[in-house]
């Protein structure tokens, strides 16, 4: 009965609009993933470093980020930065910076486990060849750590993609926000919310199936 009242004809005219929202969600995911992995790897190296203060700072950062709800970090950053700098930075840019900084903490824990999964003997072999710390990391340890952790890194990215919908809180136009606006335009919010839910579901399911296959493939090679 409820379904019969639904009007799904509103999807077609709103597709282009939803597409721009989806592009932002996708871009935000890719940028935050890339930046988060780079920054997160540096954080992991810091945490594992023998330099006490560096390890303490990295560890404090990771623990802080992991102890605060993401939506609060998004809001706080969006509201506080203009107070500090005197200029608003816009919801989209604010979202990109916040997600990169926040996700780095999670990626760093994955990369830390990855670095620790590479045996000490491997690092020793790199040093014995005359490599510096950075060469040893870049050529020997990190490629192996990254490979070992690839399925988990991708799974984290799927979670990140779902979490991007939280930028809704600061009004950045992502897929969810676009659906909300389109829903209001056509006065069909329920249909729109169902539609984006299906998009999120299909995409995330497809991605996690890929990760599972990848996991099997890596397990065979090892």
């Amino acid at each position, binding site marked *: 009965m409820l379904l019969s009242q639904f009007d799904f004809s509103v999807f077609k005219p709103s597709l282009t609009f939803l597409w721009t929202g989806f592009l932002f969600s996708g871009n935000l995911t890719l940028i935050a993933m890339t930046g988060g992995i780079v920054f997160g790897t540096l954080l992991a190296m810091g945490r594992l470093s023998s330099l006490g203060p560096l390890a303490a700072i990295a560890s404090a950062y990771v623990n802080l980020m992991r102890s605060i709800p993401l939506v609060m970090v998004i809001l706080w950053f969006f509201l506080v930065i203009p107070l500090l700098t005197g200029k608003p930075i816009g919801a989209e840019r604010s979202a990109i910076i916040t997600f990169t900084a926040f996700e780095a903490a999670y990626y760093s824990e994955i990369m830390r486990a990855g670095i620790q999964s590479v045996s000490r003997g*491997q690092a*020793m*072999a790199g040093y*014995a*060849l*005359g490599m510096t710390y950075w060469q040893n990391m870049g*050529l020997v340890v990190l490629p*192996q750590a990254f*490979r070992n952790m690839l399925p988990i890194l991708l799974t984290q990215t799927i979670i990140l993609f779902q979490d991007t919908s939280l930028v809704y809180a600061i009004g950045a136009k992502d897929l969810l926000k676009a659906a909300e606006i389109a829903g209001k335009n056509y006065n069909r919010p329920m249909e729109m919310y169902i539609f984006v839910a299906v998009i999120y579901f299909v995409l995330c399911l497809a991605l996690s199936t890929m990760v599972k296959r990848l996991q099997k493939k890596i397990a065979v090679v090892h």
Partner: protein
Amino acid sequence: MAMIEIRDVSKWYGGFQVLTGCSSKVEKGEVVVVCGPSGSGKSTLIKCVNGLEPFQKGEILVNGTPVGDPGTNLPKLRSRVGMVFQHFELFPHMTVIGNLTVGQIKVLGRKKEEALEKGHALLERVGLTDFAQKHPGLLSGGQQQRVAIARALAMDPICMLFDEPTSALDPEMIGEVLAVMQDLAREGMTMIVVTHEMGFARNVANRVIFMDHGQIVEDATKEEFFGTPRSERAQLFLSKILSH
């Protein structure tokens, strides 16, 4: 000047002393075998020589360069000291030839073609020409260790350190690795070899160092060592090892 000079080296892990006043000298072209019961500090001592393990007291000079000195460029020193590990430690994400060229290109700054040429020549030398494009995981232990020796040689080392190179190998593969090492010794490479292979020591070594409880108990020529070891502990060790 000795190629490697170890002067009164002591090392602690926290409050536990692993090396106590170790001193020895290895001349250019000499082959020195280090043996002793497990936990006697042999591997630790050899890792101190290229600074993979720090030590708190004493001094080690490699070709005149002080290893423990904070001002020493350790990566540069290590690039000239070859090291072979018990568990091979080939880089599993690179091909065999990749393992042989990465140090040459990234550390020594050689051109890719030059590094490849050198790598292939060394693979031929250890009898593994056909394995260049394979990943190390597909090779047997003996083959992996020969690649590891070739990887160290690719850097044109002035001396070589072997840390129990045959202990992780199946018995039938030990011979092929020892043969490569024997050739190397004959060509005049300066070598320190931590091993329990007393046959190798008899055939190839100039001197034998016997360690126990972090101390160098005996440091003698091969003839002296296998003839009449002076210490009781070395005698006991030898009788255990040679009896089977």
